[in-house]
């Protein structure tokens, strides 16, 4: 026996398999014992809630890196017929003075915000007004100069206001509808589960959010640890009033209709227009649509009304009614800032997201995000050649396998 033999025997002794490994247990421990995953959870809860508030059928992601931990604001941006684009919605941390937009955010004054983006409704309540506003953060796209989002913290009211370019959808269960000065608003409440980043105890009250449309393509959200009635009272003081703000010349719907508590798979959002052919739509889109013939003919074709959105914000949505797959939608729009890696990061950086999101490879090599969604739907989302694709349908008839086969057909054609 040699020294080498000893080494080999030691390695064999040490390399025996151990059946005590349990990664799920690690995840649970990480989740239960520290704030970060809880913040993630809250972020997701908020994001999901926000997403539901603004839910449509297109998933948008925004990644804002910065000196603070990378923040990823996941929203469901607007649906096939509504404007899309980067859609930050709610900061995931308890309302405070810090920059919610990472490197994209720059601090300005409240007067500067009013001057730069006068259409943003701001409150004029005793606890929340221009005179007692805290930090104001603006996210302006450096290339286009377009204002993507803004936030204002009101320390006395312990709430924040977030304005962003999303539309609202009113059809998800769990959200209350309220009318605030003639504007159809959505109210939600989320119990805050986690401790703060420094281990501080969770706030005793739930976080309450109120979202109101501002014109056809934007929304303002108020959220904080305040009562629903206080939040609504503050919303009544918004100036300019959301109903009066309409950069695109359209007012938000003023007459709330109690819609079904599911995604409306047949219709979709308000400002889309039906077109007779993809060719007709193509002329007003900023991308060349990909419509594989193998899917058959769509039974309905919608595009964002060109009168309501610039070309880059226009979406094409195709409805199919397949004999075996049932109803499903193919949605396409310019990928804008959404990248394949951002989609992957949702799964990679978020332990709990794995419950409902996963990455798969279309045709073996194209990363796509699959979402088992809260509205009992399946969605597969990917970015290819500058186009953001989504295939979605109700799981009751459109299975995950169906979604994958459709997505792969589209990806192959793209």
């Amino acid at each position, binding site marked *: 026996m040699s020294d080498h*033999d000893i080494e080999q025997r030691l390695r*064999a*002794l*040490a390399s*025996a*398999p*151990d059946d*005590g490994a349990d990664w799920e247990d690690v995840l649970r421990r990480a989740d239960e014992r520290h704030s970060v995953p809880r913040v993630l959870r809250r972020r997701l809860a908020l994001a999901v809630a926000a997403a539901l508030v603004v839910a449509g059928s297109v998933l948008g992601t925004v990644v804002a890196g910065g000196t603070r931990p990378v923040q990823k604001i996941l929203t469901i941006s607007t649906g096939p017929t509504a404007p899309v684009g980067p859609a930050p919605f709610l900061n995931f941390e308890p309302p405070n003075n810090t920059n919610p937009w990472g490197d994209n955010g720059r601090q300005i004054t409240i007067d500067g915000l009013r001057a730069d983006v006068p259409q943003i409704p701001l409150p004029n309540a005793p606890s929340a007004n221009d005179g007692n506003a805290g930090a104001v953060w603006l996210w302006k796209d450096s290339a286009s100069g377009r204002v993507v989002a803004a936030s204002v913290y009101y320390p006395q009211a312990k709430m924040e206001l977030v304005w962003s370019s999303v539309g609202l959808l009113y059809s998800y269960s769990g959200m209350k509808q309220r009318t605030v000065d003639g504007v159809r608003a959505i109210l939600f409440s989320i119990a805050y589960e986690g401790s703060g980043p420094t281990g501080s105890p969770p706030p005793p009250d739930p976080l309450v959010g109120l979202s109101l449309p501002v014109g056809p393509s934007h929304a303002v959200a108020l959220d904080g640890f305040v009562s629903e009635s206080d939040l609504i009272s503050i919303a009544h003081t918004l100036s300019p009033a959301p109903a009066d703000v309409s950069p695109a010349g359209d007012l938000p719907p003023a007459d709330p209709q109690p819609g079904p508590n599911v995604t409306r798979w047949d219709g979709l959002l308000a400002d889309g227009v039906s077109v007779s052919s993809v060719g007709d739509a193509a002329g007003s889109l900023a991308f060349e649509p990909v419509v594989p013939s193998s899917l058959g003919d769509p039974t309905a074709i919608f595009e964002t009304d060109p009168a309501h959105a610039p070309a880059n914000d226009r979406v094409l949505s195709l409805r199919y009614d397949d004999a075996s797959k049932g109803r499903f939608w193919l949605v396409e729009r310019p990928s804008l800032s959404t990248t394949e890696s951002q989609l992957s990061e949702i799964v990679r950086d*978020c332990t709990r997201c794995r419950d409902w999101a996963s990455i798969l490879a279309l045709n073996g090599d194209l990363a796509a995000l699959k979402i088992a969604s809260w509205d009992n739907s399946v969605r597969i989302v990917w970015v290819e050649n500058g186009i953001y694709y989504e295939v979605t349908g109700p799981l009751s008839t459109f299975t995950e396998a169906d979604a994958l086969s459709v997505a792969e057909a589209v990806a192959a054609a793209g």
Partner: protein
Amino acid sequence: MPATVEAIEELYRSRYASYRGGVAALTGYDAARDVVQEAFAQALRDRRDFRGDGSLAAWVWRIAFRAALRGRAAGGGDVPLEEAFETATQHAAERDPELAEALKRLSPRRRLVVYLRYFADLPYAEIASLLDISEGTVAATLSQAHAELLEQLRDKEAAAP
């Protein structure tokens, strides 16, 4: 560069046994599981603190090693090192009883270095860093441990009928 969840998970799945084996040298085999689980949970929570200036495996190992030492200190050293080694080798004794028995007779320091090298799969530099000794001392200690193990096993062979 922060560590990703996926990288930590991959490390866990591929090296769990090594971590448990290495920690077991300080805590005993059963307690090692809890320490390793907590260490990886902490790694997940603190993954943004990982700077990428060393290996992820070594970073997690430091977390586990510190947790094991803290556990010993908090418990007043309630698991004596000798006992920890005893339980750490119990599962191994079934596979190679002669070698496991020989390991028990090593001095605690030599045994710890052997565990860190083979059970925790740590490179010399990491062992040196953890034990605050030079890499040369690690190499020498391992060499001495090999020699002692070899001698013990040869003696065992010679004594066999």
